[in-house]
């Protein structure tokens, strides 16, 4: 037993064999160097791997680690660092977090087995980027007091009800605006979007406000349209108070690594 296992980050294309050198010295998960696994022959499809401590990735340990947000974050950022370094140079198929093999030979066998499918997907994703598009509703927490003179003839109870009514209307307006923004985004992306995946709206303590995330989509866009896509999407919320659009990326095509079904729209795993 070696005490290490092979952590696989991504499948990538290495057309001229220079990729491993280009990654030189990049620390991966557990600060281990990143190596490339190749098939025999002159295959230009490779898998990026690192040796990681087996004790951290065996079943029980992994279950526990995945519940530890600090550990999860460390691995996620290291994984992403490697994906980014690869994506800066070539087409990449990211693998899901914590994909682990006993050793590099096992990774090589997996690559040989799936070579054709990987090559197809790499070709489909060549020169494409992923953009994240998030829509937030910033419903007013407290309706601003009505402008103008206070109404002394209102009883406290009726004044309260009136304030609540104003709040409810402000919230309804914000959601209506969000729907309008979503419609505009749909129209804006139509010329560019090759594919779309809908992720679960973000919530919980890591969700960055302000506001409530109501749309969390990923789009696959060709490199040449990347900047136009971003600019057009960001314009979608103009003039809509209470709605914020955020674009993240460009990302490696994480959300599109698996070929999509025939239907043009997929939901991310729920």
């Amino acid at each position, binding site marked *: 037993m070696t005490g290490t296992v092979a952590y696989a980050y991504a499948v990538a294309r290495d057309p001229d064999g220079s990729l491993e050198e280009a990654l030189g010295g990049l620390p991966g998960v557990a600060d281990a160097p990143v190596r490339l696994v190749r098939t025999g022959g002159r295959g230009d499809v490779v898998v990026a791997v690192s040796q990681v401590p087996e004790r951290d990735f*065996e079943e029980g340990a992994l279950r526990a680690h995945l519940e530890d947000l600090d550990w999860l974050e460390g691995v996620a950022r290291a994984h992403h660092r490697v994906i980014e370094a690869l994506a800066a140079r070539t087409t990449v198929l990211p693998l*899901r977090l914590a*994909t682990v093999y006993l050793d590099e030979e096992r990774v090589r066998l997996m690559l040989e087995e799936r070579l054709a499918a990987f090559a197809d997907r790499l070709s489909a994703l060549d020169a494409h980027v992923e953009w994240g598009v998030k829509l937030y509703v910033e419903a007013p927490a407290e309706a601003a007091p009505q402008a103008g003179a206070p109404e002394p003839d209102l009883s406290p109870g009726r004044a309260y009800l009136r304030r609540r009514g104003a709040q409810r209307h402000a919230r309804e307006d914000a959601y209506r605006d969000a729907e309008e923004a979503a419609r505009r985004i749909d129209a804006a992306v139509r010329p560019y979007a090759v594919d779309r995946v809908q992720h679960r709206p973000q919530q919980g303590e890591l969700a*960055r406000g302000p506001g409530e995330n109501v749309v969390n989509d*990923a789009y696959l866009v060709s490199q040449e349209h990347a900047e136009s896509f971003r600019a057009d999407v960001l314009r979608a919320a103009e003039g809509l108070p209470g709605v914020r659009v955020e674009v993240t990326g460009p990302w490696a095509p994480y959300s599109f690594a698996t070929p999509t079904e025939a239907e043009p729209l997929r939901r991310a795993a729920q």
Partner: protein
Amino acid sequence: MRAAGGPPARADEPLPDRQIALIDLLDRLLSGGVVLTGDLVLSIADIDLVRISLRALIVSISEQNPGPWPSVTAALRDDDDR
């Protein structure tokens, strides 16, 4: 050039210190990416990573929440059954 995957620039964030929001990264690493079985006794494909991430993100990991795999929305039980 902007770091790929970075959050949109905000005036109050110095550029070099900007970091990708973890939640955006986890969306992609836990529900995106190619799923391969791997060699783990319990493969990553069998683990409901989205559930794990939900627990990590929604339930604060703390002394009050020990124990593996409680459901995210544990129903309140009323055992006072007299």
